């Protein structure tokens, strides 16, 4: 075994890290988040030029990375900066397009260069975290399809040029078969997008599809076989947000450590109080546990062990991440309750990541299911 990154991957991590440190201070982040788009197109272009979108995709797909560790190192740095640019949405939808036809692959290439934005319109208002829950329908008509249904909490759904939409061509409810994926331009008739902010400063959208007509070549992959593509996209997305959580946890713990050393009460730095020291020690231990789970998951992303490792990672990020996010605030005292101080924003992101691709309990349930099936 070797726990070192390859030289190229280390360079990728360093480059992303440098960008965040030097050009993405918290003020810039808030400014981008509060702009109309909810992110900066200029920053997005810069990051595309640095190759950070390409790093998420394999050479076959027009990128130059795409391995689990590529996704992990890049998103860890994004977590350190609370980067609001729409990497996650494009990772999810872009992953689906790697199974697409030639014209869809061309679109993926323009995603990698930063020209086109995608979003992954899969989750539905009553679906919670279940990947196979699709009520949206796709009926064959006039040599194409007509889509009807509602998509909920579509990350970065309000700025996307194209949507990857899941819809049933057969079956019902939670059936595993019969889900198909379509690439739909966001501006066609019948696509109604309502964007809104999330509490941690990102953007999402509710998307209603009313008699949306698409041609036959809008289909991604084989009809009715969409679920495995969705599961692949979700596994990569889960890895990405978990790495992001780790990055956010690193910064949040560093801020806390610094504060414990400098904030004085009762004539001493509050870090002198053992009541806080032991908890800090636990937090740092949990951070390393999360890092290890991330390594396990990144390394098994393209293997049979994927689902267990991804669920183990996400359960730990939910469980220990919550503890750390709450302790970060508690151990700072009032200051971390303010908008002006960064720590609270990191805590918000760490907690909200528990609500993406399944929370702590959801993934515990997955682990139990996988164990029973074995």
């Amino acid at each position, binding site marked *: 075994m070797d726990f070192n990154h390859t030289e190229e991957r280390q360079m990728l991590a360093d480059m992303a890290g440098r960008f965040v440190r030097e050009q993405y201070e918290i003020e810039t982040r808030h400014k981008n988040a509060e702009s109309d788009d909810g992110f900066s197109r200029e920053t997005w272009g810069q990051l595309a030029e640095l190759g950070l979108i390409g790093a998420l995709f394999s050479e076959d797909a027009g990128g130059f990375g795409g391995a689990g560790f590529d996704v992990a190192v890049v998103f860890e740095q994004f977590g350190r900066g609370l980067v609001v640019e729409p990497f996650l949405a494009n990772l999810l939808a872009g992953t689906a397009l790697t199974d697409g036809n030639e014209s869809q692959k061309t679109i993926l290439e323009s995603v990698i260069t930063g020209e086109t934005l995608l979003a992954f319109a899969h989750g539905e208002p009553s679906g919670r975290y279940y990947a196979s829950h699709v009520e949206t329908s796709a009926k064959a008509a006039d040599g194409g399809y007509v889509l009807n249904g509602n998509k909920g*909490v579509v990350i970065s759904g309000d700025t996307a040029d194209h949507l990857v939409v899941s819809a049933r061509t057969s079956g019902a409810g*939670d059936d595993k078969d019969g889900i198909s994926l379509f690439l739909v331009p966001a501006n066609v008739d019948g696509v109604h997008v309502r964007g809104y902010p999330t509490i941690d400063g990102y953007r999402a959208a509710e998307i209603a599809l009313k008699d949306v007509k698409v041609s036959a070549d809008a289909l991604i992959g084989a009809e009715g076989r969409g679920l495995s593509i969705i599961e692949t996209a979700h596994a990569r997305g889960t890895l990405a947000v978990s790495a992001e959580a780790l990055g956010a946890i690193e910064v949040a713990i560093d801020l806390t450590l610094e504060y414990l050393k400098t904030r004085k009460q009762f004539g001493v730095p509050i870090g002198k109080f053992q009541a806080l020291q032991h908890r800090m020690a636990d937090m740092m231990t949990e951070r390393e546990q999360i890092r290890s789970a991330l390594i396990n998951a990144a390394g098994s992303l393209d293997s049979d062990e994927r689902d267990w490792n991804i669920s183990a990672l996400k359960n730990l990020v939910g469980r220990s991440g919550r503890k750390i996010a709450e302790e970060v605030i508690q151990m700072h005292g*009032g200051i971390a309750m303010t908008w002006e101080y960064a720590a609270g*924003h990191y805590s918000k992101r760490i907690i909200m990541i528990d*609500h993406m691709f399944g929370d702590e309990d959801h993934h515990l349930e997955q682990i139990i299911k996988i164990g029973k099936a074995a």
Partner: protein
Amino acid sequence: MDLNYTVDEQDFQSEVHGFFKTKLPNDLSRKVKEKKRLSKEDMETWHAILNEAGYLNAHWPVEFGGKGWNAIQRDIFDVESSAAGAPRVVPFGVNMLSPVLMAFGSKEQQQHYLPRILDGTDWWCQGYSEPGSGSDLASLKMSAVRDSDHYVLNGQKTWTTLGQHANMIFCLVRTSKEGKPQEGISFILVDMDTPGVEVRPIIMLEGTHEVNEVWFTDVRVPAENLVGEENKGWTYAKYLLVHERSGIAGVGDALASIEHLKHIAQDQKKDGKPLADDPMFAARLSEIEIDLSAMRTTNMRVMQQAAEGAPPGPEVSMLKVKGTVLRQSINDLTRRALGPYAMPFVSEALDFGYNEKPIGPDYANPMSMDYFNHRKTSIYGGSNEIQRNIISKMMMGL
């Protein structure tokens, strides 16, 4: 022992229940239940209704116009109030300053301020904490220097809750640097319209404005605004902290929040069935209910002992720690119950009269905000670390 209400207590409960049913305005309880922003006027309206009914100060001693309610009565009122969706009473005047004035204030101060607290003429805020003095409150620096018949105040208070609505602030100030830090602190009442007082907002991590910085530059305060004796303020402040035992556990609010959570868990579907039927969710919820049921009795036991004259002990700190952690765990489980809809947050939707369609279920929007906002409860009013220090010091005697 008898865990049933006596006939008197039953009567009391129906009286109180009837009051909330008839006197609590519909709009107001809807705002509270839907977690909309309350305006200053909303809070004043409710204050006035309670006062009119004699409930605002029912816990005051009879000699000061209260009803001298006992522990059981206060619990009943608290639980009914939260269940009805009544706004929380802003505590700074009627629950915090008043007991201090009754115990240590002059006759003139009592006669002047107590009626104004009741009729809402004065809105008080609490000026204890300073940027450098949070847990270590006794290190506070804001100075008050005597200048003939005035004190001149200089310094800064912070975290002042609802200071933006207040016209009066009670402050702990330094009047002496001799001896132990606790021995140079005085308790003084300040009219916030006095020249040199400036209030600046602090925005909280979920974007709300509920706390402030209050700056004092050469603020001249009449010497008669000093409460009790100079340099004895620490004793009064501590009296206030241990005197105000009720409400610290937040039983009524916790009960109402659990009811709300149960409603959400019925409405949310997981795998086609109500989330409430999910074993993992049900386990988490049941644990909270076990804790809360025990805490409600702990709370009444402590309050009854206090009413019978027992000296304040570590139980107050236990209630603070347990009450806040429990409340926070309800917030935590509520955000979990929402699934992905814990994420959307539309600030304008907190305004009453916002009538666009909600994002997701109509109860979802404020719940993560509430979760983050309630992290404050284990920090303020003596952090939970400080409370645990008190408990261990008092009980272990090491």
